[in-house]
């Protein structure tokens, strides 16, 4: 059986011909002057044809087989391959099932004659194209989710970072040393990352850390550092393969969620407190009222009945006050959407001092203020008035019996927040004992007849309803300091 067109190869090369055909490749030859071409059997087969099924001519090849876009590279190779040199190029040729990729290597072995091979590289070419597309896809995806890659080569202790990682670090140039990497992280996270890498290298434990770093542009961002160890066949880690992801946005959402959760919790506590007063305090007064009414009914002694009745009067008055308090508390929440106006601390404070003048004088108290650092605030006037009034009258009420009361009120801006401090040298509160209850309802810490335990509760409500906080520092027999934060100054100035 003839494997080749007989005129291409002589009889003494059948083995060579056989070998070439079995490689699933084709061989061709062209005379550049006459444009005569010769194709091997494999040439037809590799294109999916039987020998003789298609016309074996230069013209047919150029007109029908080669894809029009690839004609250029084909002709260029034909005309510019120098004597003895080898050229390899890829073209698409029409097979029985459509165009496919082929690779041809041509060589000029005598003047005017070229010989070439032809092999099908379609699968390879498709995979290559697919890979390129995939790479673009991966890069785009990484950019989209702000993901960068990094590796540590254990043997050399060197760092390799992808471009995306450098983008996250906002660095212009690659960094190669681990210390440079560690130094990016904020001090509190530096050793955390370094230790995790060390453990990953020594025992191969993977890690996943949410940490903060300072970028090359001095921005502080949250990143996720995640890595696994690549181990050799002895189980030793030779490569730490990691990713770094910018998670600032989700961290920000997380923080916002946390703060609104805190707010909801606070509000819940206030509601619980409210329920407590209704269930506990009202119940006990109503209970007492019932006891007294019963005693009044059962008593035969006129004098005793009079005494019992006076108690009934006291209880009913207390109940009335309590209902008023409940009203006040409900009002705090319903009034919080009223219009805020600009209030000058000094004007307001002086009017409160005036209103409490008789108390201040009888206590011989020194009242000082300094609002120079933050003279005004945009707030609900009624709230601020009530806050000042409560804290000032508290400070006077719980003054220390052994010394002249000194009460100081100051305002200032700190971290964009307006802070008001209220400080006295009074009796102080045992915070270890009462700390959790101090702003609760009907909690009093001093055995004083006029303690009602409602003031601080309302004060807290009036501050928290507008997004602020109130905290207390106190030492028994030294004094008490209330620190109020009135939300951010952006909204309040």
């Amino acid at each position, binding site marked *: 059986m003839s494997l080749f067109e007989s005129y291409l190869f002589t009889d003494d090369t059948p083995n060579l011909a056989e070998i070439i055909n079995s490689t699933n490749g084709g061989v061709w030859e062209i005379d550049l002057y006459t444009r005569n071409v010769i194709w091997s059997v494999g040439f037809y087969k590799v294109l999916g044809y039987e020998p003789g099924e298609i016309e074996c001519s230069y013209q047919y090849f150029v007109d029908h087989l080669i894809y029009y876009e690839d004609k250029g590279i084909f002709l260029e190779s034909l005309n510019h391959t120098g004597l003895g040199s080898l050229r390899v190029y890829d073209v698409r040729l029409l097979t029985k099932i459509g165009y496919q990729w082929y690779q041809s290597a041509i060589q000029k072995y005598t003047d005017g004659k070229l010989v070439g091979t032809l092999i099908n590289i379609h699968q390879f070419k498709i995979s290559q194209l697919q890979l390129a597309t995939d790479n673009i896809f991966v890069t785009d995806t990484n950019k989209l989710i702000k993901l960068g890659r990094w590796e540590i080569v254990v043997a050399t202790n060197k760092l390799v970072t992808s471009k995306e990682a450098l983008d996250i670090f906002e660095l212009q140039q690659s960094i190669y040393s681990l210390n440079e990497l560690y130094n990016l992280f904020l001090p509190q996270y530096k050793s955390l990352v370094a230790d995790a890498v060390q453990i990953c290298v020594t025992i191969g434990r993977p890690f996943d850390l949410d940490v903060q770093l300072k970028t090359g542009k001095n921005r502080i961002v949250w990143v996720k550092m995640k890595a696994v160890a690549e181990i050799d066949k002895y189980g030793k880690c030779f490569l730490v393969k990691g990713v770094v992801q910018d998670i600032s946005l989700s961290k920000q959402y997380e923080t916002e969620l946390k703060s609104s959760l805190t707010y909801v919790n606070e509000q819940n506590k206030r509601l619980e407190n409210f329920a407590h007063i209704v269930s*506990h305090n009202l119940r*006990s007064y109503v*209970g*007492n009222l019932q006891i007294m009414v*019963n005693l009044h009914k059962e008593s035969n002694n006129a004098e005793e009945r009079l005494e019992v009745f006076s108690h009934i009067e006291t209880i009913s008055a207390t109940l009335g006050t309590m209902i008023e308090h409940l009203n006040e508390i409900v009002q705090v929440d319903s009034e919080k959407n009223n219009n805020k106006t600009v209030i000058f601390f000094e004007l307001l404070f002086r009017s409160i001092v005036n209103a409490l003048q008789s108390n201040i004088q009888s206590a011989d108290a020194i009242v000082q203020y300094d609002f120079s650092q933050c003279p005004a605030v945009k707030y609900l006037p009624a709230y601020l008035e009530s806050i000042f009034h409560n804290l000032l009258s508290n400070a006077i009420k719980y003054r220390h019996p052994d010394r002249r009361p000194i009460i100081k009120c100051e305002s200032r801006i700190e971290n964009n927040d307006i802070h008001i401090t209220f400080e006295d040298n009074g009796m102080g509160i045992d915070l270890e004992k009462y700390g959790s209850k101090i702003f609760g309802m009907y909690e009093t810490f001093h055995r004083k007849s006029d303690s009602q335990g409602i003031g601080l509760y309302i004060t807290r409500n009036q501050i928290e309803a507008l997004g602020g906080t109130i905290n207390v520092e106190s030492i028994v027999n030294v004094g008490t300091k209330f620190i109020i934060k009135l939300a951010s100054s952006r909204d309040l100035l």
Partner: protein
Amino acid sequence: MGNALQTVWIVDDDEIYKYGFRKFVAMKQLCGNVVDFNNGRDAVDFLADPRNNESLPDVIFLDIDMPQMNGWDFIKAFEYVKIHLSRKISIFMVTSSLSYKDIVRVKNHSDITEYIIKPVNSQQFSLVFSDVLNSQTPAHY
């Protein structure tokens, strides 16, 4: 007094409640001696003093919400003090708190006899007094 308890304590900061309690006990002649304390601290101090061993109560009506030392802190202190006491004291928790947590705690505490929710009516009180009397009777024989 025969059919009445010797001494009853009220540990409660509610003056009106204490007044009503005294009046009620006097009217029904349930007990000869009612002693009251404003908070748990004063009551514990009294119990811990060995000189008072002759003037111990039969029953303590204990409030939960009190300044200085609340009812639960009193119970904790009582656990230490009770071994030195010359007689068994029945403790009744009396409170207006409807907290389920408190009720469970009382049920699980061996030193507390019962939980009474304010307002206490006269039948409840009478029942408590007769219960305590009955439980004490065997000891007298």
